[in-house]
């Protein structure tokens, strides 16, 4: 356009007319780049015209004063409602004083035209000064562009002052820029996956694009000591970012026109309209809002990656202390991977052809919290097409995946795998939630990011200072199979990818497919499916009266076992925490904890409700189907076991116990020993007899085994099934396979009276050195007569020490008590043991309890 008149009214009309034309053009073409260029040109012409009228009637005048476009305007990116960044540049103070009035009139006139200015007035000397508290001004000079006025003055600024300033202050500039960027990212939860992101400020937004350009430019100027060529970013990165820039520009123009102001929030309503109008994606077929947001995230991802990589790779972007730390981490290098300044490089670039190395790479990353170098990422991307034809699967993939999930930086590794499209290649079940926006009032992040955040929030519990986090961290430390909880978190919302159906059902189906792919064993699958299927159960119960014992009992019965309760409690806590940073209030954390401890206590106090072989129960029905051939035997075996027995053992395990019981004729003491990931598991099936549990605990103590958990149950026919989980403190079994047989035999011999336990214990005691307890645990003994109709519950909390369980159980047997059920647990150095005791088939009398308590106190206060 040409601004034909210099009168304000005509300029205003002309500005409105041209602005309307630019908007119409944008609405017809959707071309954001063209719109910002046209607006830049329009404003530039108005400024020049006004300058001629109000500041200097001569072209390129007056001397010693120039009008300079900076920031977005300098780049030629004037979005429809963006501020206009202007610099009034003066040769010196005298010039500034001389042009004060005309500049003021000039600014006033622009305000009257309703153009929003963001002006700065500086002398040349002031531009050369770096203010650490105002890095933004120096950064805005990197995009400076001559508009009108003294061209020589501008040439001095551009050709001399700025290169000198940047070279002199490059370190401070980069550190300032890095600091501001990290703060901005932190404000946005360090993720681009927001449900309603800000196109300019969110990670992966236009600001990040600019930061990437500035960082590259400053580094290049520092090396060349002058302005570099236009393209300072590496070519492939630049190409990818240019496509992102086209999209982001179109989307921002759309938002400005839609809102009539500089509002860059992609609200849900805006997303609907953007999708309907195919903003930034004119070639696409029909788009839903979720499809359009996926395109947005697809563009924002490389922008965020580019800026994060530059921040990692440019030495000045971190403090010297951080650099020292990263340099120290170089010693983490392995034969496969080298670590340089906190970034992982491959020792052999071709190594990634082996999928195992690729999986190990992410395990390494998850373990140490390192980032991938750009070249490593590039190599991974090159490997993917070949990997896609035969992706790893089955037990091997599960092995690497679980080891990765257990590492402290698992979420970062998962995000990196996801960003490189490796995660969905390995687990295509996650595709439906890739960058998926599901609108609800509370969630702030996409479904995939929500799942990663939930995993991250559990891993961070250990470092947290918050009272609640510390309590939940203790629970996490007690889990037998935490990897199953992490997998459940990864998959718990996958069903949200299928709109219109109950997402829990969808997630369960998808989880089944995923676990088929990973070839997981039935016990693991059952736990993961339970967690996903129940992931809303605790929240639902919290909406009822959790101080009502009936509510607690109903919830606890659904959960079944203490281990599952712990996992579900942690899953609920992590799930709530990952909804948005404010979602988990101390009020909610307290309610979850209250429900957890009430349900845990309920499970311990109701452990002796008995099973009847003919009841109609899902687990019993499954057992019945497995045991169809021997249904009578099955019924009599099951009759009278506590409900807890069925809950802690899988159907397959129960069948195995029954088989062991069938062999009493050959050997009345059936012993089975297995090695698990965390501990050994000993199963004893035999006839009940006095001192049985105490003797068994004694044999394990005599072998130097440390009992971590145990369950002891018996049925109506007097068949006992005891399971003891122990660690092998002296590595006897681990290093000597031949000792497995001797160990099992010694249990049988002692139980059959063919070996002397007292002597074995004395021998062990002699060879032991007294260990000093790190944490002192006060002994506490509680009796509960009300929780069971047939037994007295005794809970003993004491300092864990060798032979403790043997001593406690012997004490009960000495006092003529029968141990109906034993539930043994250890938390750090605290032993937490619950026993259901009877005397002659009935509860203990108060006098009997007192005698038992005195005996226990005496025993536990004795030195050995």
């Amino acid at each position, binding site marked *: 356009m040409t601004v034909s008149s210099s009168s304000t009214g005509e300029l205003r009309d002309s500005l409105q007319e041209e602005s309307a034309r630019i908007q119409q053009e944008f609405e017809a073409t959707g071309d954001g780049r063209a719109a910002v260029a046209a607006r830049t040109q329009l404003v530039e012409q108005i400024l020049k015209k006004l300058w001629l009228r109000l500041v200097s009637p001569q072209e390129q005048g007056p001397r010693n004063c120039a009008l300079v476009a900076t920031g977005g305007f300098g780049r030629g990116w004037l979005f429809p409602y963006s501020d206009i960044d202007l610099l009034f540049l003066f040769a010196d103070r005298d010039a500034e004083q001389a042009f004060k009035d005309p500049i003021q009139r000039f600014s006033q006139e622009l305000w009257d035209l309703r153009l929003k200015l963001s002006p700065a007035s500086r002398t040349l000397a002031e531009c050369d000064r770096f203010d650490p508290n105002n890095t933004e001004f120096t950064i805005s000079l990197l995009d400076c562009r001559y508009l009108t006025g003294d061209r020589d003055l501008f040439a001095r600024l551009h050709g001399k002052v700025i290169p000198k300033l940047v070279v002199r202050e490059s370190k401070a500039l980069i550190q300032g820029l890095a600091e501001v960027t990290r703060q901005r990212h932190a404000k946005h939860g360090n993720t681009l996956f927001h449900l309603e992101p800000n196109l300019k400020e969110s990670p992966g937004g236009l600001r990040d694009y600019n930061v990437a350009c500035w960082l590259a430019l400053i580094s290049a100027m520092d090396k060349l000591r002058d302005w570099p060529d236009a393209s300072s970013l590496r070519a492939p990165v630049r190409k990818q970012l240019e496509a992102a820039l086209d999209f982001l520009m179109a989307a921002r123009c759309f938002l400005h026109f839609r809102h009539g102001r500089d509002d860059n929030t992609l609200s849900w309503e805006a997303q609907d309209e953007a999708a309907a109008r195919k903003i930034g994606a004119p070639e696409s077929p029909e788009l839903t809002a979720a499809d359009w947001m996926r395109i947005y995230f697809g563009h924002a991802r490389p922008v965020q990656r580019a800026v994060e990589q530059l921040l990692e790779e440019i030495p000045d972007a971190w403090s010297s202390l951080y650099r020292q730390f990263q340099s120290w981490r170089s010693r983490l290098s392995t034969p496969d991977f080298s670590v340089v300044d906190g970034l992982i490089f491959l020792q052999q670039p071709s190594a990634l052809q082996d999928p195992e190395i690729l999986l190990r790479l992410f395990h390494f990353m998850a373990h140490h919290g390192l980032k991938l170098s750009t070249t490593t990422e590039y190599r991974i991307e090159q490997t993917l097409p070949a990997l896609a034809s035969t992706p790893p699967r089955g037990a091997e993939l599960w092995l690497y995946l679980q080891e990765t999930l257990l590492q402290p930086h698992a979420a970062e590794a998962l995000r990196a795998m996801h960003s490189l499209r490796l995660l969905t290649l390995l687990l295509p079940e996650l595709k439906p939630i890739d960058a998926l926006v599901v609108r609800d009032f509370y969630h702030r992040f996409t479904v995939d990011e929500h799942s990663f955040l939930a995993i991250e929030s559990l891993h961070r519990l250990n470092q947290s200072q918050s009272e609640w986090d510390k309590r939940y961290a203790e629970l996490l430390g007690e889990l037998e199979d935490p990897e199953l909880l992490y997998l459940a978190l990864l998959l718990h919302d996958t069903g949200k990818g299928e709109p219109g159906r109950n997402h829990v059902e969808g997630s369960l189906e998808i989880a089944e497919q995923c676990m088929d792919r990973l070839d997981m064993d039935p016990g693991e699958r059952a736990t993961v499916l339970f967690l996903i299927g129940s992931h809303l159960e605790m929240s639902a119960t*919290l*909406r*009822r*009266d*959790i*101080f009502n014992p009936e*509510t607690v009992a109903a919830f606890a019965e659904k959960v079944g076992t203490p281990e599952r309760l712990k996992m579900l409690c942690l899953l609920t806590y992590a799930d709530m925490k990952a909804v948005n940073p404010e979602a988990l*209030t101390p*009020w*909610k954390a*307290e*309610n979850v*904890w*209250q429900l957890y*401890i*009430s349900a*845990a*206590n309920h499970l311990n106090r109701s452990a002796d409700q008995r099973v009847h072989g003919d009841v109609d129960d899902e687990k019993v029905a499954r057992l019945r189907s497995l045991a169809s051939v021997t249904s009578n035997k099955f019924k009599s075996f099951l009759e009278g076991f506590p409900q807890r027995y069925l809950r802690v053992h899988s159907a397959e395990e129960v069948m195995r116990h029954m088989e062991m019981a069938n062999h009493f004729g050959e050997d009345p003491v059936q012993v089975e020993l297995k090695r698990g990931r965390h501990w050994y598991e000993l199963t004893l099936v035999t006839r009940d007899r006095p001192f049985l549990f105490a003797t068994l605990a004694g044999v394990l103590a005599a072998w130097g085994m440390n009992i971590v958990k145990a369950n002891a149950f018996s049925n109506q026919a007097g068949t006992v099934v005891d399971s003891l989980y122990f660690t092998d403190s002296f590595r006897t079994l681990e290093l000597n396979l031949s000792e497995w047989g001797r160990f099992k035999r010694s249990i049988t011999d002692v139980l059959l009276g063919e070996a002397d336990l007292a002597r074995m214990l004395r021998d062990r005691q002699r060879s032991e050195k007294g260990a000093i307890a790190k944490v002192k*645990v*006060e002994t*506490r003994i*509680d009796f509960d007569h009300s929780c069971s109709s047939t037994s007295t519950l005794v809970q003993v*909390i004491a300092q864990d020490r060798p032979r403790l369980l043997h001593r406690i159980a012997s004490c009960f047997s000495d006092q003529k008590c029968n141990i109906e059920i034993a539930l043994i647990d250890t*938390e750090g150095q*605290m032993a*937490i043991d619950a026993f259901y005791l009877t005397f002659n088939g009935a509860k203990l009398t108060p006098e009997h309890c007192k005698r038992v308590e005195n005996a226990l106190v005496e025993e536990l206060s004795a030195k050995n």
Partner: protein
Amino acid sequence: MTKVEAIIQNSKLEAVKSALQDIGVEGMTVMEVRGHGRQKGHTEVYRGREYSVDLIPKTKLELVLADPMVEKAVQAILGAARTGKIGDGKIFLSHIDDAIRIRNEERGEGSL
């Protein structure tokens, strides 16, 4: 106008909300609060540690109503929140001088 503040059991929130909606109450503010009246604390022992809940988690509703609606709302809350046991909560009523809708500065009952 009257401000109705109701402290209720968490489990009764949904019932109270729908009872209020049924009589035409459109807006309310819900807060997570802790406190106790005559219903004192609650102690649970878990693994030898006592966890005492001196201040019990409750839900607080706040609504400002035109006077003719107040008694109906009180009855709706009473009907939905009452179990007859200690801990059911309390309702407080207080007079409100004025109300202003921030969007258009409308005042008085019209702004509710």
